[in-house]
C-alpha cells in the first residue's frame, strides 16, 4: 500500500486502525534496525520501536505531507535513540566511553548477535564514533540513503554530512587496521 493511501485511510475513523496496521507492517523493520544499530540491545530496541510507533499514532493526523512518511519516521526513531543514549549516560553518570564499552560488551555477550570477526569488530569500531556520526554512517553505509534524505532527517547540511561520513569511514578503517 502506498504511503498516500495509508494516510488517506488513516484520516477516516472507520479505516484508521487498518491503515495504521499497514503502516506498522510496512515500516517496522526499517525502524527497528535503525534503532537496533544504535542501541545494540534487542529489548531496548523493542521498547523504542514501540514508542516510535505510539508517537506516530498520536501525531500522524498532524503529519505534513510535504515531507515523506519514511523520512518523518526515521526522524522520530533517531530522536528516540539520541534521547535514550543521552539518558543512559546521565543516569549512570558515565562518560561516553563507558557507555560505548557497555554496548561493546553486549556485542560480545548477547545471544542475538553473531557474525564473523571482522563484522563484530566493525560494530565495535562504530561504537567509538560520536552518536550523531554513527547515525550518519549507519544511514549512509547500511541503509544506503542519499545525503539529501539524511539531511532531511537530521536537519544537517549535505556538505556537513559528506564530511562527517568520510571522517567516520576513515576512523573506522584506522581502528580496524590498528586493532
Amino acid at each position: 500500500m502506498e504511503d498516500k493511501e495509508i494516510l488517506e485511510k488513516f484520516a477516516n475513523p472507520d479505516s484508521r486502525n487498518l491503515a495504521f496496521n499497514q503502516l506498522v507492517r510496512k515500516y517496522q523493520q526499517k525502524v527497528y534496525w535503525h534503532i537496533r544499530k544504535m542501541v545494540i540491545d534487542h529489548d531496548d530496541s523493542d521498547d523504542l520501536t514501540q514508542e516510535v510507533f505510539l508517537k506516530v499514532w498520536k501525531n500522524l493526523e498532524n503529519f505534513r505531507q510535504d515531507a515523506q512518511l519514511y523520512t518523518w519516521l526515521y526522524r522520530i526513531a533517531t530522536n528516540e535513540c539520541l534521547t535514550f543514549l543521552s539518558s543512559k549516560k546521565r543516569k549512570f553518570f558515565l562518560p561516553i566511553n563507558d557507555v560505548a564499552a557497555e554496548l561493546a560488551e553486549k556485542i560480545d555477550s548477547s545471544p542475538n548477535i553473531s557474525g564473523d570477526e571482522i563484522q563484530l569488530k566493525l560494530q565495535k569500531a562504530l561504537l567509538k564514533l560520536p552518536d550523531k556520526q554513527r547515525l550518519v554512517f549507519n544511514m549512509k553505509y547500511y541503509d544506503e540513503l542519499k545525503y539529501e534524505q539524511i539531511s532531511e532527517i537530521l536537519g544537517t547540511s549535505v556538505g556537513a554530512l559528506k564530511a562527517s561520513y568520510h571522517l567516520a569511514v576513515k576512523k573506522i578503517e584506522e581502528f580496524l587496521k590498528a586493532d
Partner: protein
Amino acid sequence: MNNKPENIDLNELPKHNVYQVPEDYFDKLPTRIMARTAAAPKQAWLPAQLWPNLRVAVAPVLLLMLLVSVLYLNLEQPATKQTINLATVPDSEIVDYLTSYATLESADFAELNNLNQQELTADFLNVSAADAEEELEYHNLRNTDY
C-alpha cells in the same frame, strides 16, 4: 605469522547484519503495537511537554487579569453609585416612607407573640393594647396559632 589486515576498505566488506531478533518477532510486533495504540489517548490539543512551561506563564497572566478586573470595577462604581447619609434625612420623611412602603408581615406578629410570652410591657412595645387588638383584627390574625 601476522595475519592482521594491512589495509581495510569498507566498500569491500560484505554488509552482513550481525544482529538477530527472536523468532516471529516481526510477525507479532504489529499486534503488540496495535494493542498499545488502543490504550493510548489521541494527542491532546496541547502537547504534554508544553504544560509545565505554560503553567508558569498562565499564573501571572491570570493574576494580571484579576487585578485589571478589580480596578475596572472600582473605577466604574463611583460614577453611578449614590450614597445618602441617613442622619441628614428628616424624621418626618423617614416616617412617611415607612408608612407608605413598610408592610407588616405575619412573621412580625409572630415576634410580637413571643415578646408577650416574655411578659414584656406594652410600653416596651410602644403600642397600646387597643392598637394591637385593632391591628390583629385588621390582619385577621387573632386565631392564628404561632
